[in-house]
């Protein structure tokens, strides 16, 4: 939890930087541990409920741990008309999870995302930070094999 104190320091305990602090923790931990939120609330001197309001409002945050690799299926309009839901269906089937779910072995979390701005390459998925574009259902197996 040392990290949380560093992050709070980095933003000078500024109330207006609450979202940025939470983003940094989300990025390094993969979710927002309750303990981290408690520390921020105390250090910045805001009620804990304020942090939960932010955590539940913004899509970037998760309150539960997620898989080692996050699969973001782009559901933007361009990807939608090029068959993004077929990609999503296939991933749900193969990973045996619903949207938002994590596989039992903790390897993948499957999420839909609004638009990653790679519309020329639709349909697109982003695994971790890697983009994979112009996908068909067939391509998915090989792609997932790259992530252990």
């Amino acid at each position, binding site marked *: 939890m040392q990290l949380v104190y560093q992050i709070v320091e980095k933003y000078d305990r*500024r*109330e*207006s*930087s*609450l*979202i*940025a602090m939470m*983003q940094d923790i989300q990025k390094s931990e993969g979710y927002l541990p309750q303990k981290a939120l408690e520390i921020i609330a105390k250090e910045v001197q805001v009620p804990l409920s304020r942090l939960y*309001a*932010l955590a539940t*409002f*913004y*899509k*970037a*945050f998760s309150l539960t741990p997620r898989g080692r690799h996050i699969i973001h299926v782009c*559901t*933007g*309009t*361009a990807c*939608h*008309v*090029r*068959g993004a839901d*077929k990609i999503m*269906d*296939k991933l749900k*089937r193969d990973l045996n999870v619903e949207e938002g779910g994590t596989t039992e072995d903790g390897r993948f979390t499957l999420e839909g*995302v*609004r*638009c*990653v*701005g*790679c*519309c*020329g*390459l*639709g349909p697109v998925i982003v695994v971790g*930070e*890697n*983009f*994979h*574009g112009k996908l*068909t*259902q*067939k391509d998915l197996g090989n792609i997932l094999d790259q992530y252990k």
Partner: protein
Amino acid sequence: MNTKRFRTNIMICAGTSCISNKSMEIRVALEAELKKRNLENEVQVVITGCQGFCEKGPIAIVQPDGIFYQLLEVDDIPMLVEEHFLKGRPYRKCMYVPTDSDVPVPKLMEIEFFKHQMLVVLKNRGRMDPENIDEYIAFDGYQALAKAVNDMAPDKIIAEVEKSGLRGRGGGGFPTGIKWRLAKDVESDIKYLICNADEGDPGAYMDRSILESDPHSVLEGMAIGAYAIGAQEGYIYVRDEYPLAVERIKRAIEQAKEYGLLGEGIFGSDFNFDLHVVRGGGAFVCGEETALIASIEGFPGRPRTRPPFPAERGLWGKPTNNNNVETWANIPTIILRGADWYRQIGTEKSKGTKVFSLVGKINNSGLVEVPMGISLREIIFGIGGGIPDGKKFKAVQSGGPSGGCIPESLLDLPVDYEKLTEAGAIMGSGGLIVMDETTCMVNVALYFINFLVDESCGKCVPCRVGLIRMKEILEKITNGNGEENDIAVLEALSDTIRKTALCALGATAANPVLTTLRYFKEEYIAHVRDKKCPAGVCKALISFHISEEKCIGCTACAKTCPVQCISGERKKPHVINQDACTRCGACKEACRFDAITIA
């Protein structure tokens, strides 16, 4: 600038799309190959921002020859270097070939996709390294700021922006000069500027591309605005999904500060202006300016009623002027070349150019900048090269979730704020999503309503509850349970939500439903009355069949079917067990003989 020292430059695209297509591996391979051939002192590899033709990435342009290369692979590089740089003849294999021909077009400016564009906002596209301020300066960068600060009074600047006719590119189309004047005329010791880079419309990515490929043009525009309005501090609110844009804009701010172009005493005057970057939290509604302000202040982004407008009471209660990325990026050119020059471009009420992301079912997907007034047909069939696979055009969706679907009969409509609004769509931020005969318009309406149900902030009832009711009706129709009066109920609900929602998210939410009802009613009727989905999309209303004539019994479909519902002997036509089929479409994708049809 060091571009002068080299005989030739090869400009490699480093936009998000090309990077995801491994353009950085191409760069490494090129540098190694050039070195191997002792060309490293003659040919320079330059990294540029997005060059726009994303579908064909990774792409590279050789200058000064203007030769365009596409779909590059590492294995192509030795031959490309040998042919182009040693033997002096462009390498055919990596050239662009139009869909309706087999003759390659080597020159960038002769390719349909590029030929009809007019670059004002994207003027530096493909010609400079976005991470190097010196290159921006070499292409007249920060000259407009110098002119503004040294030679123009704030009122003169605002008058110039008013005269230019520039209107907000964030969707609403409000005249920028008038907005600036309102903010300037409010008395206050502290004022703020905001750059809205939340770019929430799905299918739109011009703002991301501008920030990635020419970040200084946005900074320069904001500095000019700050000087004119009297603001000392500004915020750039960028989507968290755009990490590369965040990185590049931050670097640009640092460089500009080092050069004294931001910070204190800009150009030796007493004008100070500082900029901060704030990352969004992934909520569409935060693109609405009052919600965005709440988000910068560290609260959930929920809109509030206006007035008071941000010009009077904005960020931390102070007068605030917010503009979209593309709006800001237009400012330096307007100041440098003058309003009279800018006004010549466009239509009577819509001046200048607009950047569109031309995507979906279109041959040449990418980012295009065109003069206002060009027709949608020219964009889609001229620049975009029409619809792939010989399919028929059905509609183009403009304006994101607040916009609408425009049918074939209106394709000659000129691109102009008023004309698009009359058609029931809006200009919006510039996403143009092309749809063909295999796109179901009821499904598209449901897609947008689902999006908005998810993104509604929940503050006002019409939006929070009304949209869910619309979603239920649309689901009923696409599931095959629609009744005749559902369409009338949808229309009535749309009207109520439009009149009573608190912010524009709700007020415009019905547009995708209303335009599809207006232009594609027969498709709704087919769903409701005949229980058919003519486009073959809605799962409850379609079935997959294998043609006995075309099937050769290769078993590819049976092997890929996730529920094992396809049977048949090897080398004999296969059949699908309709009761078990889940209509996932995997078989159709696997079939190489086009034997599977949807009915």
